[in-house]
């Protein structure tokens, strides 16, 4: 399960690379040499913006979600549970934060395990029992162990660069059009490259979402390897599935980091959602439980 999810992530990241290459190739076909200069600029802009949010992810997310850091004395039981999973996983103790929100949810972030932060809504701390909360903590620390902040930063950088390239090229088309009009370029190749440039940003967002979904499944599998107790996480997900409230702040920018997507899953098609359907995740965990008996 874990190995398969990792392979798929690598495949998808490579897909991103191929898409980037396709965009460059299309730009060169369509615009000739003048299109080439745009690519390093786009990658640069995207890299700077994403790198900044990646490096300061723990602090940035605190401000974006309104989470407050807490100390061991504030909630010793929660800290005990987190310590249990850090022992099981060999990870350092993360910073812990609480979001005052009745909707049950949790997330993890941080550029590396030493700068990890995990946050819980007051709602999740109220409704979940020991085993369920342990499953949730294991899922969040699994994201930390799998370096998912880095994976999503890489995905976001490439998707951002592709969006910038096709945006700039669309403007060039509008203002100047093709420079080497007299060249003997194949009209079919030109048409294909135009289609690639238009569809690439859409494909990039879809790939980014697919990567996010794979990382969620991977985190579920890694969480079970920490706790050896799929039932805890399964019943936690059932609580989340049964609960209809969603976290108040619905910023799409941080949607992917929560354990349950805060965006209404029904309004977004499956291709663009950052999480696999929760029933699918429950079914996978149930099959793990049966294997254990």
């Amino acid at each position, binding site marked *: *399960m874990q190995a*398969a999810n990792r392979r798929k992530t690598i495949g998808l990241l490579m897909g991103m690379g191929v898409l980037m290459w396709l965009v460059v190739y299309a730009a060169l076909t369509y615009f000739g040499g003048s299109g080439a200069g745009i690519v390093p600029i786009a990658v640069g802009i995207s890299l700077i913006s994403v790198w900044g949010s990646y490096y300061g992810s723990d602090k940035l997310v605190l401000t974006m979600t309104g989470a407050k850091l807490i100390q061991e004395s504030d909630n010793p039981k929660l800290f005990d549970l987190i*310590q249990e999973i850090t*022992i099981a996983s*060999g990870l350092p103790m993360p910073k812990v934060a609480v979001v005052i929100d009745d909707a049950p949810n949790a997330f993890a972030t941080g550029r590396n395990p030493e700068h990890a932060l995990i946050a819980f809504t007051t709602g999740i701390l109220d409704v979940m029992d020991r085993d369920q909360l342990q499953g949730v903590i294991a899922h969040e620390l699994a994201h930390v162990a799998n370096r998912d902040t880095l994976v999503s930063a890489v995905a976001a950088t490439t998707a951002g660069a592709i969006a910038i390239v096709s945006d700039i090229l669309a403007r060039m088309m509008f203002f100047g059009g093709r420079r080497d009009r007299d060249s003997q370029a194949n009209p079919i190749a030109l048409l294909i490259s135009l289609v690639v440039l238009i569809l690439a940003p859409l494909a990039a967002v879809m790939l980014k979402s697919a990567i996010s979904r794979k990382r969620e499944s991977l985190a579920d599998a890694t969480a079970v*390897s920490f706790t050896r107790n799929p039932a805890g996480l399964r019943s936690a997900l059932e609580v989340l599935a049964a609960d209809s409230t969603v976290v108040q702040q619905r910023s799409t920018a941080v949607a992917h980091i929560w354990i349950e997507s805060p965006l209404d899953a029904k309004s977004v098609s499956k291709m663009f959602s950052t999480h696999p359907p929760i029933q699918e995740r429950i079914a996978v965990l149930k099959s793990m439980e049966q*294997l254990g008996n």
Partner: protein
Amino acid sequence: MELIIGLAVVALIAVFFISQYNRLIRLNITVDEAWAQIEVQLKRRADLIPNLVETVKGYAKHEQSTFDAVVTARAKATTATTVADTAAADGMLTQALRGLLAVAEAYPDLKASANFMSLQEELATTENKVAFSRQFYNDNVRSLNTAVKTIPSSFFAGFAKVTEREFYEVEDPQDRNVPNVSFN
């Protein structure tokens, strides 16, 4: 040209040797750290016991044999040094503590006391921490032993002075079943 290729080959071989050696050393250190974590958690549990026994005694005076079992098991657990001895004493103490908590079930006043409830919560998380530190230790021993036995890292084991390590096996029929998760 030949010189550059020759140097590159030598450099590649050196990198390979160093990475193999370092991997074994790193695995060995992780096992040491995992072992230290088990000892920390066992000590934590041993420190909880006198308080717990006193609390239960306050309500249930006639359960001397249960108290004796816990005290003996604790003494054994605190003096054990080798992996096998520690594991055996750990299993005995886990069993004895279970007996103590079963006795407590029969005394409603004790079960309702705030002191007992907080001790019980602390014991529960400590038992979990002991179990998870065992699991982490055994996972790392498995990686180390595999590295020591498989090619190519096995060639470097003698040089790095890294040998196979002992698993931490607790004899306890009630131990939580490890689910057999298939990774496909």
